[in-house]
């Protein structure tokens, strides 16, 4: 764990009926951190997509758990979604992860849309597949111009702080 990071953990059964609990928790934490309504909506979809994949692919219909870890730091919220099932072939799916292009509707395939949405809605997405699948989604806090203090600190003020 990084310094100045607060962690909240939640474990839910790998069952579609509990994914809304992950969304509710995310909503509470992201709102507490001051993320905008739109940012929270984006994160809700991304987290749900990762949970959907765990529900659909991790346990082959057997019971299992999804572990969520919300890492709250000053500049970002990272959400780690982990299952202990068989590794989901994200590399294969990543090849299809694209928006639907203007081709005949008959040829449209939905597979890969979940991963595409995660990538489109979050600032960073990484997937590790050892002992199950671990998806790490990060959203940085985009503050107003006046708050980018760290980017416009003059050398003299740095010295004063030192």
């Amino acid at each position, binding site marked *: 764990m990084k310094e100045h990071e607060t962690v909240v953990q939640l474990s839910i059964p790998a069952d*579609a*009926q509990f*994914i*809304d609990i992950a*969304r509710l928790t995310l909503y509470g934490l992201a709102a507490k951190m001051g993320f905008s309504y*739109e940012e929270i*909506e984006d994160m*809700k*979809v991304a987290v*749900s*997509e990762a949970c*959907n994949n765990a*529900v*659909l692919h991790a346990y082959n219909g057997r019971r299992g758990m999804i572990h969520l870890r919300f890492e709250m730091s000053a500049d970002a919220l990272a959400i780690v979604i982990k299952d202990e099932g068989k590794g989901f072939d994200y590399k294969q799916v990543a090849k299809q992860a694209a*928006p*639907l*292009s*203007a081709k005949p*509707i*008959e040829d*449209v395939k*939905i597979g890969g*849309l*979940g991963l*595409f*949405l995660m990538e*489109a*809605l979050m600032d960073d997405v990484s997937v590790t597949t050892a002992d199950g699948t671990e998806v790490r989604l990060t959203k940085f806090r985009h503050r107003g111009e006046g708050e980018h203090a760290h980017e416009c600190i003059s050398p003299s003020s740095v010295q004063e702080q030192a």
Partner: protein
Amino acid sequence: MVYIKGELDLAAAEQFQRAVEPLANDATKLLVIHLDELTYIDSTGIGMLVALLKTRKKQGARFAIENVPPKVQRLFDLTGVSYFFSEANDTTERIGGQS
């Protein structure tokens, strides 16, 4: 007319399928899905709407999706499905929306 209220996600997939399937298979009637009160949708929900559109198109049946909330529209745009939905809505309008 079908009004969807609440969340259209993996948990709601089965219920949605059950409710809509008989209507989707009746090619003689216009099928309109109203999304005014849809509070959440993900790729599962989007996939179900696309599947519905495919079924209707195959039958040459009329289909429209209406009153899409802005946050849902954003996901439709992002994933590229808005193109198909607006094409379906235009066709339905052209051939007359009355059933």
